[in-house]
């Protein structure tokens, strides 16, 4: 039987999601063709705000690369728009004159930014915020102009405004109502949000209705109904979206606000289906991602002839993707005479929670500041649970297992990668998975942002029942069942000296290990035996092997050592000369107060180091990176101690020391803490006559404020405590465990107790000194070693004509 022709109009999230579901169910049933107006492969539109905010590249939000289409034998026509559908002949035609027959047709044309029909809306400098083109336009404008106005303080408007702030523009946000995100939040939450965003630098004009966009050809500003005016070079309209139904309408497919579909995503025209933001289902039009997944599933089942109940609508939830602000809302927001609500408003901590209860059932929730409960509430609201269920669970801190037990099989657990409960449970059962790591590896769930980790653990607990061990031993990696402590014990006991030997003797399932255990074992062996262990280049991550940081395009960056962040004119000249000579792509100051030379070719690294004649900043290292300092008593009018000198001393002493993970230090000379020691692995604050040592701070993915370890009087004591502390971490930390997690795991009181004993500190420092004595400066080592130069830094260039 010849394959049926399945044709998709719209290469966006919804349509492709449906195709993915079809491929899962019946990989060989259809010959698939996709038309997309945008010249990109399928990308994650929800993450566009991150692109604008500068956290992410367009390539990072691509969901399906070109290769995916090829691998699945899908014909893709990007940058080509379907302009006509012949319903009787079942043929579509495009703006490039192509004609393509279909057996089944999916319309997934999405939606467009809604542009208010204001006078002047056609002037240059007005944009929506909907696709990559809009994003690029805004970025472009920010390079030449200063002032932006965003119309609409909903989700999209605020995310656009945050992005424009990041791009260095001044931003006015205009909103027609009197508080922000009024469709998702109630007034108290809206006010809290406003306060937070004002602190971030946004300016709000509330209760304002725009009357006109002013300017000649280009926009110059806005005039409001009340006669007031503001200046603006760029106007972003973020007042909503409207389903893109033009194609359907012109071709006689029934449309109301969106293309009308039934529970099986069928339009009223035979063999034509529609999915995503362009559809209207039971009088609802959605502009969020969760419904797309559910609709895609229903459609795929219908197309493949798999019986299903169809799509029943979605309880939607909203989360704002602006850094530093946690907002979540779902279900019913506003109170009325049939509802009761539970409200907790903590003005001091800036958190707010409101639950709407209707007939004793949870019907909606608004969370501000603390959104941990979001997923759980969403799930309870979906099944219209009794409010008691939520409250009781909160009281008894009942495990999440009962919650996931009641989730339907096809409910999404991982929103980033579209992994459902069913996929995870099936994988656990059929592949005998026991840990979060294994689930991650098998299903991709929680491999991106990680917010669904706790749900995945709950699913493991629920699926495995008694077999699940919550405090399960964490093995070094998938190649062994042994934990880090067990491996270290065995190494000591059996006197093992090479990674291969460890893997062999301890029965690694993977003869040569993997990218997790190789560097870990290499570290443990070196830590246990610093003077005799021969470091294995091949077990090092590329940054440490080559002593430079690899960048996304395969070039490297070089950060010359600059003790305590202090430099001089001679070094600066050398750096500038090297930057010219090796055609450096960008010179950037790092967060640790050092100069970063980016875009250096691998083969140029050794020569560049030789020219610089400065040590490496070890910016690549799992070990001491930099010691950040404030100006201190030498120049600062508030400085009580010589923080710069202290920082230099620390950096010189501990440079090159390896650790389970990277280590950052900072020294400040007054409580203003300009060097930001509160979020460093070791943060030292000099006060009048006293040094405070804070440890376990982290400014990275999981923000953690350091704990006070001790207060000491002299610089020598600082050195002694820092040395002992670092060595204790080196000896007891899991590879790739930052001090922040390590302090959490051991408890600060335990660390204090251990280090309080003077003899222990001395012993630790002795072992630290042995480790320090074995360190060799890597750059000069490379420059003087022909073999290393050839093996690691040379690229072989073969002319294409050679035989």
């Amino acid at each position, binding site marked *: 039987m010849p394959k049926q022709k399945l044709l998709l109009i719209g290469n966006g999230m919804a349509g492709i999601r449906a195709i993915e579901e079809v491929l899962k169910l019946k990989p060989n049933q259809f010959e698939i063709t996709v038309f997309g107006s945008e010249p990109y492969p399928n990308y994650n539109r929800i993450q566009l705000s991150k692109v604008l905010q500068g956290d992410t590249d367009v*390539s*990072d939000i691509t969901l399906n*690369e070109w*290769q*995916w289409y090829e*691998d699945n034998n899908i014909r893709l026509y990007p940058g080509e728009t379907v302009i006509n559908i012949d319903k009787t002949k079942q043929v579509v035609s495009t703006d490039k004159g192509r004609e393509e027959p279909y057996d089944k047709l999916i319309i997934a044309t999405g939606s467009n930014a809604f542009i208010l029909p204001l006078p002047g809306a056609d002037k240059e400098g007005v944009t929506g915020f909907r696709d990559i083109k809009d994003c690029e336009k805004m970025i472009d404008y920010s390079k030449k102009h200063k002032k932006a106005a965003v119309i609409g303080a909903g989700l999209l408007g605020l995310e656009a405004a945050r992005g424009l702030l990041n791009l260095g523009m001044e931003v006015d946000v205009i909103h027609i109502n009197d508080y922000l995100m009024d469709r998702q939040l109630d007034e108290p939450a809206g006010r809290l949000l406003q306060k937070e965003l004002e602190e971030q630098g946004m300016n709000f004009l509330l209760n304002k209705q725009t009357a006109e966009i002013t300017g000649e050809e280009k926009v110059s500003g806005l005039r409001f109904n009340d006669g007031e005016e503001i200046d603006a070079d760029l106007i972003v309209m973020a007042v909503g979206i409207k389903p893109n139904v033009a194609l359907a309408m012109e071709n006689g497919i029934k449309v109301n606000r969106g293309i009308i579909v039934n529970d099986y995503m069928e339009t009223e025209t035979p063999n034509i289906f529609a999915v995503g933001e362009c559809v209207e289902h039971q009088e609802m039009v959605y502009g969020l991602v969760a419904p797309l997944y559910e609709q895609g599933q229903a459609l795929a089942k219908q197309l493949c002839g798999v019986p299903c109940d169809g799509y029943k609508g979605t309880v939607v939830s909203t989360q704002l993707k602006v850094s530093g602000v946690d907002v979540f809302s779902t279900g019913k927001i506003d109170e009325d005479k049939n509802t009761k609500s539970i409200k907790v408003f903590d003005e001091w901590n800036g958190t707010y929670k409101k639950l709407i209860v209707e007939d004793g059932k949870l019907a909606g929730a608004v969370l501000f500041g603390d959104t941990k409960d979001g997923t759980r509430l969403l799930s309870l609201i979906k099944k219209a649970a009794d409010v008691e269920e939520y409250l009781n669970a909160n009281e008894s801190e009942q495990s999440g297992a009962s919650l996931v037990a009641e989730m339907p099989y096809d409910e999404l657990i991982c929103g980033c990668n579209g992994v459902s409960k069913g996929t995870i449970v099936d994988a656990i059962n059929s592949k005998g998975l026991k840990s979060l790591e294994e689930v991650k*590896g*098998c*299903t*991709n769930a929680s491999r991106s942002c990680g917010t669904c980790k706790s749900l995945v653990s709950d699913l493991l607990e629920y699926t495995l029942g008694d077999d699940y061990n919550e405090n399960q031993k964490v093995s070094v990696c998938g190649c062994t069942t042994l934990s880090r402590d067990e491996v270290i014990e065995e190494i000591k006991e059996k006197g093992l000296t090479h990674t291969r030997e460890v893997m062999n003797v301890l029965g690694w399932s*993977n*003869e*040569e*290990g*993997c*990218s997790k255990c*190789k*560097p870990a074992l290499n570290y443990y062996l070196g830590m246990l035996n610093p003077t005799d262990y021969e470091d294995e*280049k*091949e*077990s090092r*991550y*590329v940054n440490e*092997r*080559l002593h430079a940081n*690899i960048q*996304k*395009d*395969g070039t490297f960056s070089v950060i010359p050592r600059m003790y305590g962040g202090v430099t001089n004119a001679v070094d600066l000249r050398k750096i500038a000369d090297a930057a010219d000579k090796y055609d450096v792509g960008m010179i950037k100051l790092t967060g640790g107060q050092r100069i970063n030379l980016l875009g250096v070719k*691998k083969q140029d690294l050794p020569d560049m180091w030789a020219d610089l004649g400065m040590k490496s900043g070890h910016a690549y290292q799992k070990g001491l990176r930099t010691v950040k300092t404030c100006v201190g008593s030498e120049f600062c009018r508030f400085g009580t101690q010589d923080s710069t000198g202290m920082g230099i001393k620390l950096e010189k002493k501990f440079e090159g020391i390896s650790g389970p993970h990277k280590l950052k230090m900072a020294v400040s000379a007054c409580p203003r803490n300009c060097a930001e020691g509160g979020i460093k692995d070791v943060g030292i604050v000099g006060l009048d006559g006293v040094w405070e040592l804070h440890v376990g701070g982290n400014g990275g993915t999981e923000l953690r404020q350091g704990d006070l370890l001790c207060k000491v009087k002299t610089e020598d004591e600082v050195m002694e405590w820092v040395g002992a502390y670092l060595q204790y971490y080196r000896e007891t930390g899991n590879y790739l465990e930052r001090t922040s997690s390590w302090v959490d795991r051991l408890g600060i009181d335990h660390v204090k107790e251990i280090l309080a004993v003077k003899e222990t500190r001395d012993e630790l420092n002795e072992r630290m000194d042995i480790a320090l004595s074995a360190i060799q400066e890597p750059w000069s080592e490379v420059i003087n070693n022909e073999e290393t130069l*050839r*093996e*690691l830094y*040379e*690229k*072989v*260039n*073969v*002319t*294409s004509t*050679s*035989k």
Partner: protein
Amino acid sequence: MEKTQRRIFVGNYSELPKKLGKTVIIGDQEVAVFKLASGDIRAIENRCPHKGGVLAEGMVSGDHVFCPMHDWKISMVDGKAQAPDEGCVQTYTTEVTEDQVYVLMEK
């Protein structure tokens, strides 16, 4: 179908680093050449199917290499990315004669 192949000399066997990759530029293509722990030589396209990561800098385990960018595991035998990732890179046949290493490429 008969294909003509070019034998391209890429270096001396004894000089290739063990358990590490080497970047070889052939015309406009980049090939990653590896000397495995077993002593075998493998050659693959120097581009991870994920985001084009330079595989020559990856960590090697047996017949596999881990992309240094996002840790995808790629087989050097058939070029396939290991589950849950999907994708494939081009692999090349290699030959060692005396101390000389050759990569075979289609004309």
